[in-house]
């Protein structure tokens, strides 16, 4: 369960990033956040993951204020993947488990099976710069999923990928959500992606980000949705409220 209670964020230099943000995402629900660049989407995810504190208001995760390092149920995937260039694929995926003090044998077992399920086996020794964008993104997913999070926060995870890997990974995320009942919060600036993946779509205004509209999207949750008339109808609806901002 994720809850934003009238969150305001003003940076030290006076930049107003977020204004009176309130919405909630139920356990097992998926929610997309869409808004123009610079409207405070990354700031909002940083607040939910406990990296930043709101200036006023509260970010509540599973009933508690978001505060590191006690955020074991939350995994964050940063914009541009957040991988460490000095760690190879295996080390990048293992790092979260290592920090939590999981024994090496168990780490190896978890990482090996994740890499296999993401088609990354054989690339353990590669460094991020040797991988394509799609592969880097899968490494970032593997790292987040290694922690078996109940809540997954993602900052424009697919925006720098080509159309094909993008659609593949959208399907991957959808299956992940359906099979594991993960609570997902996905920042994107693609309307189609927001509609395909979010049961709920939060539309933000330009900076300072305010909630313009929360669009309900009950039909999301199947691969076939992408080709249905309801999907295109919903995209039109979201586009209208984005353009109205």
């Amino acid at each position, binding site marked *: 369960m994720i809850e934003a209670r009238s969150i305001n964020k003003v940076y030290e230099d006076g930049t107003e990033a977020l204004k009176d943000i309130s919405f909630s995402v139920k356990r097992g629900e998926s929610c997309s956040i869409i808004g123009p660049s610079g409207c405070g989407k990354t700031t909002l995810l940083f607040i939910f993951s*406990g990296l930043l504190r709101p200036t006023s208001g509260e970010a509540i995760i599973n009933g508690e204020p978001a505060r590191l*390092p006690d*955020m074991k149920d939350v995994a964050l995937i940063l914009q541009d993947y*957040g991988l460490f260039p*000095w*760690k190879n694929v295996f080390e990048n995926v293992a790092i*979260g488990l290592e*920090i*939590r003090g999981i024994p090496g044998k168990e780490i190896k077992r978890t990482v090996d099976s994740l890499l296999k399920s993401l088609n990354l086996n054989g690339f353990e020794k590669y460094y991020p710069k040797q991988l394509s964008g799609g592969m880097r993104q899968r490494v970032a997913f593997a790292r987040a999923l290694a922690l078996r999070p109940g809540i997954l926060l993602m900052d424009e995870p697919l925006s720098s990928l080509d159309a094909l890997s993008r659609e593949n990974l959208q399907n991957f995320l959808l299956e992940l959500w359906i099979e594991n009942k993960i609570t997902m919060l996905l920042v994107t600036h693609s309307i189609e992606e927001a509609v395909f993946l979010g049961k709920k779509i939060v539309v933000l205004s330009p900076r300072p980000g305010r909630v313009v509209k929360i669009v309900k999207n009950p039909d999301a949750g199947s691969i076939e949705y992408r080709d249905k008339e309801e999907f295109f109808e919903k995209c039109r609806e979201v586009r209208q409220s984005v353009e109205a901002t």
Partner: protein
Amino acid sequence: MQGSETKRGSYLIAIILIVIFWYILSVVVNSPALPPPNTVLLSLISQARTGLLEHFLISTYRVIYAISLALSLAVPAGLLSHERAIDRFVAPFLYLLYPIPHIVLLPLIILLFGIGDLSKIVLIALIIFFQILVTTRDAARNVSDYYVYSLLSLGANKRDVYRHVIFPACLPKVLTAMRISIGTAIAILFFAESFATTKGLGFIIMDAWSRADYSGLYAGIVSMALLGFILYIILERIEARVCRWV
């Protein structure tokens, strides 16, 4: 492997060219002050039997001790400069003390550490300490918050951040600083060994010089070049191993 073969080849070519150039120069100059390489080689071999190796090892010990000492102080201090509060405290000391030519502190060093080995080591260490500190500090201050956030979001504490982000991110810069420091260390080593000692390559060179034993003098110089070369090779091996990601 093919890479290291061609590398070895190009080192060989460089050595051959230097020797040829040296030989021609010695013929042109035609003075006892520049003996040809074959004479120096013979002197090197005969001296190796009569104690040159011991001097070589003592010089090696002094340089490696000094570099280790400087590294073990400069790297932690430099990395901690990532902390703004610490840097605000450290930076003024750095800017006030760095520009001093530290070699003029020799009398003070001798006063504090005597005229033995330790003061020679401290002198070398002091000078390269600043070189390594300045570079490491710059690198630590420039580590992007992005990586720090990335690690913190996984539940990391401060120690994890230094171990998994700040240290590895700065390591290439530290190794570059070390490369520069090796050259400096050997130059200071020569100076430090030219007084108050009867051991080391610096002593060999000064001693041969005062006796006008020019082939002995060049044997010392060649040994010193060899010492620097070996240190560079070791550093390069380390770099190739730990900086594969760059």
